[in-house]
């Protein structure tokens, strides 16, 4: 079974530029999550999708962050414009919890974003 795929693995941009991250979850997983992990902290949930609908985006800074999951499969997270404090690892995770009741989340390798 293929795992959660993310790209790119690393990205360096200057502040006020835009950036986009891509995630392809495990096949058949209905629930998809985007997390932000700042150095020394645990992952913080940004947005949770169930199929192609948003379940929770209460911690997404909507003035600059946006995410979509068209067709309920892969997802894109965008930051526009980036700030210095957005430097972090962005983790995507998927889960079959919506259908199987199993709450285990499978994480991708993450995208390390550096904003200069």
């Amino acid at each position: 079974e293929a795992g959660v795929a993310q790209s790119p693995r690393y990205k360096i941009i200057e502040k006020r530029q835009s950036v986009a991250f891509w995630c392809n979850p495990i096949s058949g997983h209905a629930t998809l999550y985007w997390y932000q992990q700042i150095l020394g902290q645990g992952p913080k949930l940004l947005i949770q999708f169930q199929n192609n609908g948003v379940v929770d985006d209460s911690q997404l800074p909507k003035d600059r962050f946006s995410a979509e999951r068209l067709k309920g499969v892969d997802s894109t997270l965008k930051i526009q414009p980036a700030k210095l404090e957005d430097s972090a690892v962005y983790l995507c995770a998927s889960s079959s919890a919506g259908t199987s009741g199993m709450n285990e989340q499978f994480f991708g390798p993450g995208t390390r974003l550096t904003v200069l």
Partner: protein
Amino acid sequence: DQQVKQNSPSLSVQEGRISILNCDYTNSMFDYFLWYKKYPAEGPTFLISISSIKDKNEDGRFTVFLNKSAKHLSLHIVPSQPGDSAVYFCAGGRKNFNKFYFGSGTKLNVKP
């Protein structure tokens, strides 16, 4: 507002001995807890979970204990192996919401 806390940033243990990693939570509505292990440059991988209807769950060398009255859980690794050296994250939440809050992690170093 940290609902899950791991107060020990690091732990060093000798190979073969027991590793005990601790986690506290503040939300009494949480009914499901998970532990994840993370190696550098990789995403976290699921290790073990426990539902609030249990006070213990065991999987091989890994055992998680839950003390609901103290809002405290711990992960025991026996015996510890050098390959267990990683950052361990505790997460808790409400199972039906499929949304979990993570602690800040404990870096475990198992010395040969």
